[in-house]
């Protein structure tokens, strides 16, 4: 046997890592990334798209103390049997009393605003929110556009007849 026959010449086309190992590693990576993607997708699903609705979910402090009316009932048709409630039975929403403000720095809070000031501030915030909503509504639907989509009638009673007659 000559020296030339024993000499090993490496084939450059042969992969350094066997094909089987490559495939296994790709499959493992794919499975890991797929799992990460699914987990991120599920986590982000809980993030609300519109934070504007949060204001409604919170009990409004000035509503419970300043509102001239009894708070609305949450009672719905499917939630309780169709019986007449006695007038004295409280609506479920009346139980939602606003939690007292938490004083983070009691020493500086002694001379701070009282409950009335808190109520005024909350009322002012609510007024500002409603006013900004009105502004947004006007900007979103100017009069000429509303005339196309929302045709006028005389008053509420006319609307009621229109609705019930359809």
């Amino acid at each position, binding site marked *: 046997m000559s020296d030339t026959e024993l000499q090993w010449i490496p084939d450059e086309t042969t992969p350094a890592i066997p094909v089987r190992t490559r495939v296994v590693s790709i499959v493992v990576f794919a499975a890991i*990334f797929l799992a990460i993607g*699914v987990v991120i997708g599920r986590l982000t699903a809980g993030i609300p798209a519109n934070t504007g609705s949060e204001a409604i979910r919170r009990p409004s402090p000035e509503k419970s103390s300043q509102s*001239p009316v009894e708070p609305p009932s949450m009672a719905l048709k499917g939630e309780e049997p169709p019986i007449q409630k006695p007038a004295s*039975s409280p609506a479920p929403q009346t139980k939602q009393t606003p939690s007292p403000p938490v004083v983070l720095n009691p020493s500086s809070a002694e001379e701070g605003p009282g409950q009335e000031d808190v109520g005024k501030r909350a009322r002012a915030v609510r007024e500002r929110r409603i006013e900004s909503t009105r502004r947004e*509504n006007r900007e979103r639907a100017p009069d000429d556009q509303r005339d196309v989509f929302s045709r*006028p009638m005389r008053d509420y009673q006319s609307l009621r007849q229109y609705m019930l007659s359809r």
Partner: protein
Amino acid sequence: MHRLLYIFLMCFSLAPPAQGREALPDWVLYVNDRFGFSFRYPVGVFEPDRRAEAGDGEVFTDVGGHARLLVGAFENVGVHSIQSYMNFIRTESYSGYNVDYAPHGQTWFVLSGENDQNVFYEKVMFSCSGRLISSFALIYPVARKAMFDPVVTGIEKTFRPATNCGQYVRH
């Protein structure tokens, strides 16, 4: 390395999008300028149909034209009590329905029922010491209860009666 990056991007693109899965309607706040009653409604479900020139109400219709939502407020010129106004609209507006739900409190009541075709749900609230009456009413097909019952729930939870006691402009 490029192949790895490709796989990475492909896997993330396969992850189901959060927004697409939720697909909840966008609930917008409606505030009445004249009387100050307010509520939220799903803008993708209901669109404004008719509004009152007096500024005291509006009718919304669903996109398919099957359901109607009426909101409004008015002065209690008839000096109605909860019971008398409940009886009034029960006979005047819903005589063709079988009313099976009628709870009430000191300043509010609900009437609801159905006939062969439609379901109705109306909530009425007295405010400003009984001088103003605010209400919302929905009528929708019985066949679409599954779709509109949650809408009723959402409107019910966000509806606030008129608050402009004496500040509204008389028409």
